[in-house]
């Protein structure tokens, strides 16, 4: 049975763990710079608390990196030198050079690097891609997506230095838009150039928002809205792919499959909630981890590769550079300016 170790036992790790606990793996243990986080995870999901990441690497076959984006590169380098395959959360890295070195280092070390671009595993997104691939839409023409939520409050805390410090998180494009950038590239192929307007360099982090225009090498065009400027507690996604033979659309604002309108305690109003419940195998993080586990055990290429993740970082950073400079950025020529 594959032995899995978690680096970084915070909010996203708990989402992964909910998937891992339903998969045929040995959850070996955790390393986190905050020992309490490891202890909490171990208490809930089982496994050991490790005092160093090297000690954890020695005991596992597959490392699942759920630390802050700024830590990804160091952890992946260390895992690669220990000869361990790695699942790495998005963004692959905050800096393009780090992302490039991560891909190269893992290739040289002969270890697999599985990037956790989970949107490809959301059933509605997978269904739209399958529909495009089936030919039902004809030749791909125009893609639109929206990913809009409120400013992240991991663990319920509003004060989140990682997210509000854009030198760490990269802001809304690198944290949120990157999902759709990867999805767009999966559907429509390589991106020729990107143009973006947004608030990243102008507004408070809680208002971070961008509107991104894409041109693909195929000639197709695209648009991505990514936002942290939504009112708290709201999250909305939208997807539209038009080709010369048809169109597919999906919007999370449309009626969900299960709604609950309950009288409140004193019958003066209503408590509303809504769900779109999924079958266990359709849970996106479960499906993603199951896919990576299967690829790791069979030694086959995953449907989202380390190079895909590198390109998603590159296009995201190019979009930020477009926002800063006011100019379109050609992806093949783009080199990140930052040290």
């Amino acid at each position, binding site marked *: 049975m594959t032995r899995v170790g978690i680096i970084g036992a915070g909010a996203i790790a708990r989402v992964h763990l909910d998937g891992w606990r339903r998969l045929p793996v040995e959850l070996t243990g955790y390393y986190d710079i905050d020992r309490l986080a490891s202890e909490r995870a171990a208490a809930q999901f089982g496994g050991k608390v490790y005092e160093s990441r090297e000690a954890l690497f020695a005991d596992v076959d597959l490392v699942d990196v759920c630390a802050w984006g700024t830590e990804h590169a160091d952890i992946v380098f260390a895992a690669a030198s220990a000869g361990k395959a790695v699942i790495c959360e998005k963004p692959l890295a905050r800096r393009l050079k780090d992302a490039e070195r991560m891909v190269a280092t893992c290739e040289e070390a002969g270890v697999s690097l599985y990037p956790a671009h989970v949107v490809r595993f959301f059933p509605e997104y997978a269904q739209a891609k399958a529909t495009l691939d089936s030919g039902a839409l004809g030749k791909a*023409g125009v893609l639109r997506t929206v990913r809009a939520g409120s400013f992240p409050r991991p663990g319920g805390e509003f004060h989140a230095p990682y997210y509000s410090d854009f030198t760490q998180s990269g802001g809304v494009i690198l944290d949120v838009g990157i999902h759709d950038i990867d999805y767009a590239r999966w559907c429509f192929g390589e991106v020729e150039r990107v143009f973006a307007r*947004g608030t990243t360099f102008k507004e408070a982090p809680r208002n971070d928002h961008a509107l991104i*225009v*894409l041109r693909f090498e195929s000639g197709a065009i695209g648009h991505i809205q990514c936002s942290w400027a939504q009112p708290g507690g709201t999250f909305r996604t939208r997807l539209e792919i*038009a080709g*010369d033979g048809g169109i597919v659309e999906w919007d999370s604002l449309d009626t969900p499959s299960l709604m609950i309108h309950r009288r409140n305690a004193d019958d003066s109003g209503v408590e509303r909630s809504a769900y779109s419940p999924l079958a266990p195998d359709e849970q996106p993080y479960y499906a993603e981890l199951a896919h990576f586990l299967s690829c790791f055990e069979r030694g086959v290429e995953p449907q989202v590769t380390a190079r895909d993740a590198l390109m998603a970082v590159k296009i995201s950073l190019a979009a930020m550079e477009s926002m800063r400079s006011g100019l*379109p950025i050609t992806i093949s020529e783009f080199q990140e300016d930052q040290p």
Partner: protein
Amino acid sequence: MSDRRIRIGMMSFAHMHAYSYAVCLQQMPDVEIAGIWHEDAAQGEALAREFAVPFISDVERFLDAGLDGVIICSANAHHRRDVERAAGRVRAILCEKPIAATLEDGRAIIERCRQTDTRLQIAFPVRFHPVFEQLKRLLDSGAAGRILAAECTNHGSMPGGWFVDRALSGGGAVIDHTVHVVDLLRWFWGAEVQEVYAEIGDSLLHPDLGIDDSGMLSFALANGVYATLDTSWSRPAAYPTWGDVKIEVIGDGGVLYADMSRQHISVSSQQSGKTQWRDWGGNMDLGLMRDFVAMVRQGHEPSITGEDGLAALEVALAAYRSAERGEPVRLPLTG
């Protein structure tokens, strides 16, 4: 003020909006359609029969028919010709959008109407949709706080005919669908578009169309708001409606979503072999007709001026220039 009926002449049905305008005019008790002129006599006669009004094949006789105002719905490139024929012969002209296919023609239209003291209104019906009237009031009241951005779409089906003949239209999806939303944005905030970037697709969704059928435009407005607009004719024949106008406004106090296609019933009929949406609310063309007829009757300044039409056209033309040059284009255009 006289309570006699206002006599409106329909000058060309080349643009399909004319049909809806005529239907609306016939719902208004204080208006009569005094005559129809149309380039194609057979079509014109059939329309005249349908509306039970005279067809006048000779344009001079048409303009001599004692008209108070005309509604010009010819092809974009013919607007100047038809305005120059009608200006001074009638008191007021409603000219279909875009004002013209070129800035030169647009300016000439405004100048001729000024010289002849003819009231000129541009037909931007979307301003009269109750959803957008309400959105404007919400924005004025600060409902979303300080505005940061707007994400807009004006999708459509590929209209064919003169719309895809560059000599008559001046362009495809971008000139057809930029002006409505740009007019709304200018109206919302009284701010001009200062810069446009555009990625435009030629024959992207309709092979061998030979003209742009898709466009993704990015604007910077003078009030600091940025916006994008998708102008694509991306709705296939199988789609349940013609297209959409949607605006999502993002402010630091919240988000407003406006979609004028939501007031529909969904009809699935073996007749058409598909599911279709039929609107039950938001007859914006009736609002536009009432506004125009009120101006004709009272003689006040138009609510939507030739300059408004010209400004919207200029943004569409700047989008084409941006796509050609691969860079953002500043407004106003020069050269």
